[in-house]
């Protein structure tokens, strides 16, 4: 804590700063309003993407993730991040290197070449879990920070995969039917809606989007069917990759399969930003593939 604010090294990842910079801006500004200060983490690279890198070469995955963690260790701050994929890489590697001496030694041997050493001195958190944790922020504080309630909107929550699973390597205990992000959404004045395949993957991760786009879109389409059936005005998630898959995905689905969906997709931080009074311009919502206007009309 510093000046009453909980400070964290902000690990940006790739997709948010490159494709949805509004997520980055929202995260920093909205967190400040609930007592969390996100400090820049200089020199951070791609986490690296767990599907694209981890599935191909584990040693590269460990080394690159460790390097990112070390930058935060040098700052003496825990890491906060806003992406499920980054969470898998950074959180899991951090825990595994702390626990397994031989693995840590191997990684440190590689990092020695750039004069870096993993010490295991910090912890890693997803910003959403920090929002939910009453010791850091809590649902009430979120509710109190709202100046423009998202009344009248129905929002479908997509948890994603790497946030909660594998259960044995996560702090969360429920991957079958968690409800805590719904609580965070309801705190904004919106109404979270349940839909049938809530826990299904968006289709992007694990290298699937990169390797077989059509297949990944088929999975996304399944989700869009059920979300629409539940009457949602928008989808929210806590992962820019899921966001990309839903957002660009709807355009690709129209191109490839001729099916038209027009469901706005917003990262939770973007929703929180809107609820805290940030403008659509500040949130760079015009960079979204799917037009957010129908959603914005309901709240502005």
């Amino acid at each position: 804590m510093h000046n009453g604010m909980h400070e964290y090294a902000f690990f940006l990842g790739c997709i948010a700063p490159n494709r949805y910079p509004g997520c980055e801006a929202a995260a920093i500004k909205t967190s400040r309003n609930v007592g969390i200060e996100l400090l820049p983490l200089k020199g951070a690279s791609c986490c690296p993407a767990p599907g694209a890198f981890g599935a191909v070469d584990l040693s590269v995955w460990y080394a690159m993730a460790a390097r990112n963690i070390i930058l935060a260790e040098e700052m003496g701050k825990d890491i906060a991040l806003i992406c499920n994929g980054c969470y898998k890489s950074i959180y899991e590697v951090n825990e595994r290197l702390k626990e397994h001496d031989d693995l840590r030694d191997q990684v440190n041997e590689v990092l020695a070449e750039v004069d870096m050493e993993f010490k295991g001195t910090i912890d890693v958190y997803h910003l959403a879990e920090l929002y939910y944790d009453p010791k850091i922020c809590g649902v009430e504080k979120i509710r109190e920070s709202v100046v423009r309630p998202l009344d009248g909107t129905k929002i479908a929550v997509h948890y994603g995969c790497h946030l909660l699973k594998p259960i044995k390597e996560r702090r969360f205990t429920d991957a079958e039917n968690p409800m805590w992000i719904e609580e965070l959404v309801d705190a904004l004045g919106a109404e979270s809606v349940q839909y049938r395949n809530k826990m299904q993957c968006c289709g992007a991760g694990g290298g699937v989007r990169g390797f077989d786009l059509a297949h990944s879109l088929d999975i996304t389409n399944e989700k869009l069917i059920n979300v629409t059936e539940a009457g949602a005005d928008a989808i929210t998630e806590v992962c820019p990759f899921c966001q990309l898959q839903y957002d660009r995905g709807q355009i690709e689905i129209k191109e490839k399969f001729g099916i038209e969906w027009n469901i706005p997709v917003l990262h939770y931080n973007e929703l929180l930003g809107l609820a805290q009074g940030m403008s659509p311009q500040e949130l760079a919502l015009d960079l979204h593939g799917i037009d957010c206007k129908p959603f914005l009309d309901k709240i502005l």
Partner: protein
Amino acid sequence: MAEEKKQPRIGVFVCHCGTNIAGSLDVKAVQDYARTLPGVIVADEYQYMCSTPGQKKIDDAIKEHDLTGIVVAACSPRLHEPTFRTATKEGGLNPFRFEMANIREQNSWVHMHDYEGATDKAKDAVRIAVAKAALLEDLYPKSVPVEHAAMVVGAGVGGIQAALDLASAGIKTYLIEKTPTIGGRMSQLDKTFPTLDCSQCILTPKMVDVGRHPNIELHTYTEVEAVEGYIGNFDITLRKKARGVMTPTEATAKGIVGGGCNGCGDCDAVCPVIKPNPFEFGMKPRKAIYIYHPQVVPLIYTIDFDSCVKCGLCVEACGEKKAIDLNMEDSFETVKVGTVILATGYDMFPIEKKREWGYKQFDNVITSLEFERLICASGPTGGHLIRPSDGATPKKVAFVLCAGSRDNTGVGKPYCSRFCCMYSLKHAHQITEKIPGCQAYIFYMDIRSFGKMYEEFYYRIQDEGTKFIRGRVANILEDAKTKNLHVYAEDTLLGQPVDMVVDMVVLAAAVEPTQNIDPVRKMFGVSCSQDGWMLEAHPKLNPCGTTTAGVFLAGVCQGPKDIPDTVAQAEGAASAASIPIHMGKVELEPYFAQCIEEKCAGCGMCTNLCPYSALDLVEKNGRTVMQVTEAKCKGCGTCGGFCPGGAIYMQHFTTPQIVAQIDAFLLGGEQ
């Protein structure tokens, strides 16, 4: 205890056990080594010492060499100690002058790649055994009388069968059941595979026989409170829970002529309290005064005092029979029996713990036992299978096999529950037969149709049109509007994912030991195996017995099994349990404690240590010394391990013998 001190003359016999021992260590070297040990007169070896020629070697050697003790280096004494004791006896020696060196289970089988190490260890084991054998002495088993009565705990089909067999053999049998009626799980079933007999129809005659048999004393709504004693002489205290309703016998004993419950049900009609009926898994109501179903044995009502509001309307309705006593309390009775059979059955694993399948989350996901009640003509819907959500008749039903069984995630059970494949085939048949146009889908890993006529039953179900999908169900999700269910699985034979929409799902949930059975089994000294079921004495050679003499197991409490196997095991247990009773006496191994009175200071500490209260302080020749009641002493040695004065002599495990073994190991050996 005091004997003429004869120089020990030990015979050592090393067994090859085929290649089981000879393949991993040098039997000849062990034999040669044995010859060099002090006290060893003859050392021999043979392929199979437990065979007739092998045992004859012992017999001959004793006579030829005037031996005082025998050592056999072979398998575990837990296996063949009795065999070789008999051989020793036939050679003319007291059978307790025999010691075994375990060079198989604890040597050759576990050191298969260290010939030298295993051989050295075997030599040490023989040296240790010889040291003890040199100090063994004549001992005589103690005979105790056996009470001509038995107890069966649990009155499902297993307990019922065991009780009937014991009673027919002329043995007074106490049959104890914790619920208000006998019949157990079998009376909850509709039909039984593979014959498709009506379950209650084939069980009811046995239930009636139990109720009528002059040798069976039936105690329902009763639990075992405490157990004391030992084989032949168990003192068991029963807690007869307060039923609130008197049987005719009980009423007569209280002077009410022509009174007692006759099952008329007038009380049921007026009782204002409605509760779920556990026999129907809550799908049918019952009153606070109730019977589970019309065929209960005994046909006596029971009051659930936790729900009863003591309004007294039932007392009024009962009228002249005066069968109801709202102030009844639990009572206790202690009975003496010779042997006991545990037949406590099973419960279903709480399958809601496997959240991916939606049980207790989605209305139309039910368990197999709930299905049995729904499809049963005497069940809550009169035998019409309906969807809980809307009462509609389903057209597509999915059966999920291995639900919670064969599960290594730590949530379910790792074992196979054995009878679910067969009853799911039966269920599929039943809906195909009863509901025209209804399609059954069985999602399976394997179909285990192992028994007599079981495979043929499987062919039949396949021919009738049930569809089989080989793949574990990964997830079940509900369509919020229709309450239909999406069953997600992989069809592994086609290599394709499946998303099947069905009206209803039946989970073939795993079975587990009856809840809260651990205190009961511990009272009888029965252990449990790794999977939680009660531990048999030997899985192949003694599946009905336990390591506690006089206590036997029957039915699913020992491990999942179907009705034929339960009845078979019950008959086996009854036979085994009747042997000590018919023989009238049983021999206890003479491992008793003895007090060396010259050394005893009379401190009395040992009397507190004995778990069986077998030790007392008595006055003898003006001194206070300890005395052992041999019938109560089980030879555990806890007193002997403690006595600071060395005044306790543990027969066959004496301090000199054990110290000799320790010294032999550590001080003897090739210098």
